[in-house]
């Protein structure tokens, strides 16, 4: 940071990161892969005359640190020549943090657990699935421990240790004539910002037989009749629809066209015509973003530009009211915040996947908040006369503006007269995003709220992956178009 400042930076920050990841994969009775990776390095980001520069290296020596800092400054000066409008950074809403420390709230560091134990866990779970009749079974674990230190010219120095864990299993069943097959993924165990206790607390061996039985039932289930149905969506399914159809289109860089070359734009654009004017859903619909939920994938103490993230509404009482922002982006909405008597400040959404990547706006946890009534999954089913209940996320497709989409799932249940009457297969629903959320007419309460999520939320060039959770209760959406994905011409 000092070298960058000496070279002419108006602002500079530096991240030093040591990240270790481990993945273990198995199939039936054998291990398919074990990988252990460590990457260490630092990245320097500078602002010179309103233009960014960034350089990074794995070679943390005094000479290389100075070279990289100067390289970042030289790059910013070059970029300034192609600048249209100098960027500005919004002030940070808290004083500099000179000695910040944050750590994921874990109980067991996954890297202290022997590989032997992890392999035994997976093979035991596979054995349970095979004993229950699975034709094929794959299972895996992935762990991350990222220790990163951040410092900026503002005087902030933070040290954070972030853990993530993802156990998973897929069982496959085939028809007796091998002409059809189906899978059941372990979507009721979601990835979390936790340690090895997440694996132990969700014993796949205990669930495996049920997943096999569900796959068997799905294979012989009744194909869905196309038409319009009331959909009851379980949190293990709905988190993905929230991710794709609320979280992505409310990224401010997408709305202004800065992701047009890769991730896409947004139907919530231009902001001047949408903020405070666009009705996303019914008045009981509230979408709150956070990076504070314990065990969530996006949780941190400070984002990658030293801002303590805050909880903020994206949708308030059904109205679209805010985007996800960084310090640079908050200034783009200065007019909106002034209009509403709010301070212009970042929501703390800056993130870089590694030391080698420049930080930019990434999604926090974006959550659909529970309703006031104490409703649960069974209440929504009991209140539905002709519907389909969907559990678990599956394949999907969505356009680059996040406007037209199609979602599958893991399990589909026919609901008649307030009761589940059997399983269906080949179900997918098609939506236009605003119509889908405005068709929301029932929502679960606090008791039914769960966190889903994913690693590998892609954006940016060079492409970077983000990890993010989405909390939600079950919901019901009236008269949604359902197609049959198994039909052939």
């Amino acid at each position, binding site marked *: 940071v000092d070298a960058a400042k000496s070279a002419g930076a108006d602002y500079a920050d530096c991240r030093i990161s040591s990240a270790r990841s481990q993945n273990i994969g198995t199939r039936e009775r*054998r*291990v398919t892969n*074990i*990988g*252990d*990776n*460590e*990457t*260490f390095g630092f990245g320097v980001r500078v602002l010179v005359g309103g233009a*960014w520069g*960034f*350089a*990074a*290296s794995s070679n943390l020596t005094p*000479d*290389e640190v100075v*070279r990289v800092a100067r*390289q*970042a400054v*030289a*790059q910013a000066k*070059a*970029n300034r*020549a*192609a*600048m*249209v*409008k100098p960027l500005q950074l919004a002030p940070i809403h808290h004083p500099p943090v000179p000695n910040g420390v944050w750590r994921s709230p874990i109980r067991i560091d996954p890297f202290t657990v022997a*590989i032997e134990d992890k*392999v035994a866990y997976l093979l035991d779970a596979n054995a349970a699935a095979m004993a229950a009749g699975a034709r094929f079974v794959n299972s895996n674990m*992935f762990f991350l421990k990222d220790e990163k230190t951040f410092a900026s010219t503002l005087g902030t120095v933070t040290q954070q240790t972030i853990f993530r864990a*993802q156990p998973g299993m897929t069982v496959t069943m085939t028809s007796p004539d091998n002409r059809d097959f189906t899978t059941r*993924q372990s979507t009721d165990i979601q990835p979390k910002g936790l340690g090895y206790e997440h694996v132990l607390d969700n014993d796949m061996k205990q669930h495996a037989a049920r997943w096999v039985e569900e796959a068997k039932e799905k294979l012989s289930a009744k194909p869905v009749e196309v038409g319009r149905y009331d959909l009851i969506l379980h949190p293990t399914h709905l988190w*993905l629809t929230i991710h*794709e159809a609320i979280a992505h289109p409310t990224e401010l*860089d997408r*709305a202004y*066209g*800065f992701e*047009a*070359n*890769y*991730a*896409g*734009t947004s139907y919530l*654009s231009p902001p001047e015509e949408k903020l405070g004017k666009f009705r996303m859903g019914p008045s009981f619909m509230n979408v709150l973003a956070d990076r504070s939920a314990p065990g969530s994938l996006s949780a941190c103490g400070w984002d990658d530009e030293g801002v303590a993230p805050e909880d903020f509404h994206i949708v308030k009482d059904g109205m679209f009211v805010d985007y996800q922002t960084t310090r640079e982006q908050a200034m783009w909405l200065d007019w909106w915040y002034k209009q509403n008597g709010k301070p212009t400040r970042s929501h703390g959404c800056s993130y870089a996947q590694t030391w*080698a*990547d*420049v930080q930019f706006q990434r999604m926090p946890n974006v959550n659909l908040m529970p309703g006031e009534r104490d409703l649960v999954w069974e209440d929504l089913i009991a209140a539905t006369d002709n519907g389909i209940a969907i559990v678990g996320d599956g394949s*999907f*497709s*969505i356009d*680059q503006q996040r406007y037209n989409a199609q979602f599958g799932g893991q399990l589909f249940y026919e609901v008649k007269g307030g009761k589940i009457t059997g399983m269906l297969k080949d179900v997918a629903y098609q939506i236009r995003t605003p119509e889908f959320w405005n068709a929301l007419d029932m929502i679960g309460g606090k008791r039914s709220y769960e966190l889903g999520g*994913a690693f*590998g939320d*892609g954006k*940016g*060039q*060079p492409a970077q*992956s983000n990890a993010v959770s989405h909390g939600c209760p079950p919901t019901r959406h009236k008269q949604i178009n359902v197609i049959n994905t198994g039909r052939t011409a």
Partner: protein
Amino acid sequence: MPARSLYAIAPHLSRAECEAITKKVLGYSTADECRVTVNSGMRQNTRFAVNQISTAGDDYNAAVTIRAVIGKRVANVTVNRLDDASLRAAVQNAERIARLAPEDPELLPELGPQQYQEAINWSDATASLEPEARADAVRAITEPARRAGFISTGYIEANANSFADRQQQGALRLLAQHLHGVHHHRAHARRHRLRLGRRVGQRLGGASTRGSSPSARSRRRGGR
């Protein structure tokens, strides 16, 4: 990595450096088979959108991947700290993990000695694609686009790396050691991937070039 000037051709480990690293790693190995891969170099990129540069970066990395095979048991470990202690620890970690891994009945042996031709895919122009040159290239797109009332968005990336791969086999590893190929100077540039959309307020009429959902490509560990 030795000190270098700010705008020298992008660095990567030389053949001699790769040979030294791979030899050192193989010397640490006690596995039945050990494969060492060294990948080093620079990635240089400039991104532009709405007719201006949005992000840019130059990053250098050098990583070593060790694949240890003990009987029918195998494990991979990757590190990018290249000091002796880190490399030795990585070898020990790979062998420790391999010993813990159950046997893989489908594991195939290494190919054995191979002949590789010298790679000829190096370009000094790509390897020295400085930030100024990238900014100039961007301006050559964005300024005419702006004058014509279009919005341009795109990305320039140049990579310059060396890749080395070496293996040993059996108890006679030091004697049987052989070079599997040190492929130098792999470089390529993806230039000027350009998308134009007519200006309609702040919206873009054009679709993204890479599909609507980079997150859709995989399921459990993949993207969303």
